[in-house]
């Protein structure tokens, strides 16, 4: 009897092994996008990463995606569908997919999940994010040098730490050049809605800003800036095509290398959930070519970028005061990551009131 059980157990284990081996022929990697994969911005950035992954690993991987998935009940269904369709690794690429990712991951302990920009992880959910604030600091430096009005327009999405951190980094960069530099902020309350983004851009242009920057996903603000003859920064993808005379530079999300690395880890069986927060030096974000600006500004921007890469400059280095005048960072003090990731205050010199 004991032998029979043993034999059964062995054959079951073998069966399981061969099934796993069969699945290993091609590792299926799935992506879920909040916007269209051709939005010219954030979701397109992730899809570029998916394509690079396909090219790099060739026959070893198979990829699939779902686009325009709303953050909410539909997201849970979409993610579960992926887990069920044999995906070994699922990248959920928007903040609002966080709870749905955790929920589905509990039901599918054998599937690996990676959630972008969130703060919840588990045994099979890792998180990954890029230090976009490094790029925003550089943009702030450029804005303060290029702007004649001394005021930039900022199209923000939601008042979550990620976005607040971006505004603060932009202004720290600007203040390093011109301590009186101002910013006007419009909360679009959406990640991707070309109509609303364009309206926000027009409202800001009407108020006299001559530089636009955005934390939303579409190219609409760039197009408005081009129509109004002002300058703008691209977001998530190189948006130079939408504003050949307009774009100063863009923060380009380059997730490809990361996707390749993590997929390889799944193939090798070494994947572990991690909380990744990489920066310019790791290549998870890059700056689009510095265009439409005088050479000295370009040179200054390149110098700042080099300093950030080398670690010589951290954008959040004291002395920095909070908006209410209280001290935050002392001279030479560098902010810890925890404060940045939970950031819910403005630095001094921002006139806007943070919606809370």
């Amino acid at each position, binding site marked *: 009897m004991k032998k029979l059980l043993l034999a059964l157990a062995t054959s079951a284990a073998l069966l399981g092994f061969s099934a796993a081996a069969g699945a290993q022929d091609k590792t299926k990697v799935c992506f879920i996008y909040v916007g269209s994969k051709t939005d010219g911005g954030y979701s397109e950035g992730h899809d570029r990463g998916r394509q690079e992954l396909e090219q790099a690993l060739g026959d070893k991987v198979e990829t699939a995606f*779902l*686009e325009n998935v709303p953050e909410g009940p539909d997201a849970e269904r979409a993610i579960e569908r992926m887990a069920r369709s044999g995906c070994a690794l699922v990248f959920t690429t928007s903040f609002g997919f966080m709870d749905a990712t955790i929920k589905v991951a509990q039901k599918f302990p054998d599937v690996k999940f990676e959630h972008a920009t969130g703060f919840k992880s588990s045994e099979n959910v890792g998180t990954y994010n890029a230090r976009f604030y490094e790029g925003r600091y550089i943009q702030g430096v450029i804005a303060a040098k290029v702007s004649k009005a001394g005021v930039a327009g900022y199209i923000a999405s939601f008042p979550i730490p990620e976005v607040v951190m971006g505004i603060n980094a932009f202004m720290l960069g600007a203040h390093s050049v011109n301590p009186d530099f101002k910013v006007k902020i419009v909360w679009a*309350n959406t990640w991707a809605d070309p109509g609303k983004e364009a309206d926000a851009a027009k409202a800001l242009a009407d108020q006299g800003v001559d530089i636009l920057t955005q934390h939303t996903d579409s190219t609409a603000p760039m197009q408005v800036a081009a129509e109004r003859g002002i300058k703008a920064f691209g977001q998530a993808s190189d948006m130079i095509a939408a504003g050949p005379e307009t774009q100063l530079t863009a923060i380009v999300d380059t997730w490809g290398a990361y996707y390749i690395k993590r997929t390889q880890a799944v193939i090798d069986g070494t994947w572990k959930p991690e909380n990744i927060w990489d920066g310019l030096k790791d290549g998870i974000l890059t700056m689009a070519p510095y265009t439409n600006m005088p050479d000295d500004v370009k040179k200054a921007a390149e110098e700042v970028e080099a300093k950030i890469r080398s670690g010589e400059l951290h954008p959040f280095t004291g002395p920095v005061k909070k908006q209410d005048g209280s001290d935050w960072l002392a001279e030479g003090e560098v902010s810890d990551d925890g404060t940045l990731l939970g950031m819910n205050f403005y630095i001094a010199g921002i006139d806007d009131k943070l919606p809370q």
Partner: protein
Amino acid sequence: MRIELEKRPRPSTLLSVLSPFLALALTVVAGGIMFALIGKNPVAALYSFFVEPLTDVWSLHEIAVKAAPLILIGAGLSVCYRSNNWNIGAEGQFIMGAIAGAIVPVVFHDWHSPLVLPLMLVFGMIGGALYAAIPAFLKAHMNTNEILTSLMLVYIAQLFLDWLVRGPWRSPDAYNFPVTRDFTPEAILPEMIASGRTNYGFAFAILAAVGLWFMMRYTLKGFEISVLGQSERAGRFAGFSSRRMIWFSMLLSGALAGLAGISEVSGVIGKLQPIISPGYGFTAIIVAFLGRLNPLGIIAAGLFLALTYVGGEAVQLTLNVSDKVTRVFQGLLLFFVLSCDTLIQYRVRLVLSGLGRSGQGEAH
């Protein structure tokens, strides 16, 4: 030259019955051609669209989850439309129902009691009904067009919800994201069976639709609804009050939309957020007409529309097509359903000006 629609003297009964199937067949053909044109195997695509979701217990559940609000709202709307009251604002009543029901778990989140859920559902129905009472009052007492008022109130409801979740009801521990706190377990509408996500909202939908079907078919109230809908004057001779009917049908459809709202928020989302409906209130209008304003037909139509959503995702994932392709596909389907219905009732005439009615064009 102009094109005219002319009522057929004797529309074919057989074709009227077959119309939905004819439309489906035409959609399959047109959709197949579309998939072939973009270089995808049409058979595989159509299989993932219509068949694959039905082969899996999990996706059957997902269809039920998606269909529940559509059926619940659509059934209520059918009573409205049959009685000639055009409530276009179910989306707003859905939202207000969700908000009213959420008062319990959001404002009194420390109160733990088995009464929480029943109270939420009742509040949800009251919230939806009260919101529908505004266009009802305006129509019954000021003779206002309820299509406009109910539609405009949708936007007010959406913005009110938006303000609530960003302002007074914003969760203290969601990193400033515009959501309310998560509902406590006793505020969650439970799942019906362990095998999937279907919650009791689906049971409410079926009960409501069957109940309304019974009312329309076997009760005096149902007769009153049809008579007043077809001829207000005839209704008045029979002693029915069209003003009371405005109140009855609007409050009923509002309450059901509100119930759908709180069921969705409590059973599926688990909190309030700026967007809680992908347009259920409007899609339910299509469902009501696809189901020919018959509550049982609306069950079928709601399930079918839900299938196209779930199937649409399946196609995206298996064939790597853009989600726009599946939207086009849904559009094709509704187009063929409506055109089949129309062309069975009417025929198309090409009227050449100056030549009288000699020029004649036939439907394709």
